[in-house]
């Protein structure tokens, strides 16, 4: 579950309103490569991840993306607060104002509302992780586009922080992908109970799986397999 910490992850102190900038920054709130998409994607994918490392990373990065969502919301709010409707309309936010006034609503830079079609949650760890790598790159690129359009240092500062976080997240997902692929490529092996423990084969939980071969990177894993998973604990022993 989540606990809310009453502070932003990075300060947002915008001194000058500027609706024109808000129109573009809002894409990182409700757009395809924005923070809502990122957090929903990672927090959804974590349920089907097979390894602790993957669950933890998706959980924690997904949580951080929610904090980023809050930063973007704060930026948009501070850029439009108190701006008269006529000025908003002149700067291209007339359509948005008609439906939302000065509220923050998840849309992209053209005003299209957020959709889950922006994310994927495939249940296949490799597919999910490479999607996450792509998502972080797209987010980074979007922040670079936004920074190139801005001229207000109060706005550029948090955007630059967010861009750097995307780069770090990309590194982390790369590590998780490497760890997951290494695990999938391991040869599973099973230990057969030695004869002297005097348990009939039918009672033992040994089943050699004959169709196992060294997995290549894109083979769906036999999940939950660990080297000694098919050894049943010793029963009462002497018979």
């Amino acid at each position, binding site marked *: 579950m989540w606990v809310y910490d009453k*502070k932003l992850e990075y300060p947002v102190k915008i001194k000058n309103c500027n609706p024109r900038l808000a129109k573009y920054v809002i894409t990182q709130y409700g757009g395809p490569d924005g923070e809502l998409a990122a957090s929903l994607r990672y927090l959804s994918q974590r349920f089907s991840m097979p390894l602790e490392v993957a669950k933890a*990373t998706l959980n924690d990065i997904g949580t951080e993306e929610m904090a980023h969502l809050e930063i973007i919301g704060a930026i948009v709010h501070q850029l439009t607060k108190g701006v008269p409707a006529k000025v908003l309309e002149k700067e291209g936010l007339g359509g948005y104002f008609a439906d939302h006034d000065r509220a923050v609503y998840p849309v992209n830079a053209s005003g299209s509302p957020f959709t889950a079609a922006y994310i994927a949650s495939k249940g296949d760890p490799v597919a999910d992780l490479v999607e996450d790598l792509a998502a972080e790159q797209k987010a980074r690129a979007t922040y670079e586009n936004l920074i190139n359009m801005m001229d207000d240092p109060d706005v550029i500062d948090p955007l630059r922080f967010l861009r750097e976080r995307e780069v770090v997240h990309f590194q982390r997902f790369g590590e998780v992908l490497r760890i997951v692929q290494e695990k999938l490529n391991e040869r599973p092996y099973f230990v057969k109970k030695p004869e002297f423990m005097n348990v009939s084969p039918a009672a033992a939980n040994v089943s050699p799986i004959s169709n196992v071969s060294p997995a290549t990177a894109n083979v769906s894993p036999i999940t939950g397999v660990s080297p000694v998973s098919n050894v049943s604990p010793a029963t009462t022993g002497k018979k």
Partner: protein
Amino acid sequence: MNEARDSMLKEVMALDFMCIELNLYLDTHPYDQRAVMVFVDAARRAKMARENFERMYGPLTASASNSFPWPWIENPWPWDVQ
């Protein structure tokens, strides 16, 4: 106007951020003993800074609320223009 509060909160933010960053690193490097030690120390310092801030300016999490009337609702909220 509220510059003392701002600079104290900034210190809490910086120390908490260090913990977040280490947290992400440790999620993929759980056996890095030195990193765990650095985390534990950073968390301790972050906790102290947080408690100092909360003592002066009120709770940063709802469960830290400790006065009357219910202090959690008080402004400023993080997105407010100040």
